[in-house]
């Protein structure tokens, strides 16, 4: 069974890399977007297990985004993704899901 992971970050290049990295593992399904509205729409329409907050999200936007996502799915885990690539990704996700 796949774990659905939603990544939100403002940098389009990093978002594309994250999409490739997340979907490279058969146990993960990665959904990667740059806009908060897209993230909220995805969460409203389908099961999401984990949210990774990537680069460039302003603090006020981050708070509002978290609140909206949690109002849709109170059980949702939301963590900060650091590094923008593969180095920390596996450890972050394993820790969040453990």
């Amino acid at each position, binding site marked *: 069974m796949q774990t659905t992971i939603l990544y939100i970050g403002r*940098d389009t290049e990093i978002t594309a890399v994250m999409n490739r990295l997340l979907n490279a593992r058969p146990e993960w399904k990665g959904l990667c977007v740059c806009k908060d509205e897209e993230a909220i729409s995805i969460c409203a329409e389908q099961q999401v297990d984990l949210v990774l907050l990537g680069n460039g999200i302003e603090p006020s936007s981050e708070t509002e985004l978290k609140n909206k996502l949690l109002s849709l799915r109170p059980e949702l885990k939301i963590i900060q993704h650091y590094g923008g690539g593969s180095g920390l990704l596996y450890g972050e996700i394993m820790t969040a899901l453990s």
Partner: protein
Amino acid sequence: MSQFILHKENTRGHANHGWLNAHHSFSFANYYNPERMHFGVLRVLNDDSIDGGMGFGSHPHDNMEIITIPLAGAIAHKDSMGNSAVIKNGEIQVMSAGTGVSHSEFNANADEQLNLLQIWLFPNKKNVTPRYDQQTLDLAARHNNFQQILSPNADDAGVWIQQDAWFSLGKFDEGFETEYKIKKAGNGVYAFVISGEVTINGQVLSKRDGLGVWDTDSISFKANTADAEVLLMDVPMELN
């Protein structure tokens, strides 16, 4: 009462990709050990050996302070900020990834092995403007002395980063003893032995061993061999 954690060289994560032989003091890439996630804000300590001419193609980073210290050979760096440089043994490079930066890193020499330490710290502020710097260090200044090579302050010795961290490098004669005072309350020190054998707070450390010490304001140090070289990373223990 001070606390410590000892990471012996042979307990590090290891990945041999042929052209890249990597040892990870903390979880990195496919090496995942929940007991080895970080020491305070120190998240990554990679000891990489890279074959001649080989390296990492362009790849992005964000929100991380990335410090590279070549131990042997030279690394060719290019990034999306327009920087293009070669960093060799005796120099230090820092990149504040902030809102996002792409870079490539290759062994600058076709016929020489590159060995480097790459260190990642969590920043104390997210989404800063990306920044790059490198410095040539005075090798003589680290003889029987912990030479500061990194700090949070732009006008202090060494490169500066977006974190309340201080790095020092020292190379010591056999029998040399000293004390290192931690720079800021709440910080701990992670000592990484580059070569030789040393004793820190009573713990005997060999080449590539790591020792983290916290809940103290200083550590004791003694060089047990003539070629003892140590990197001290004085970092906040609380994640921001």
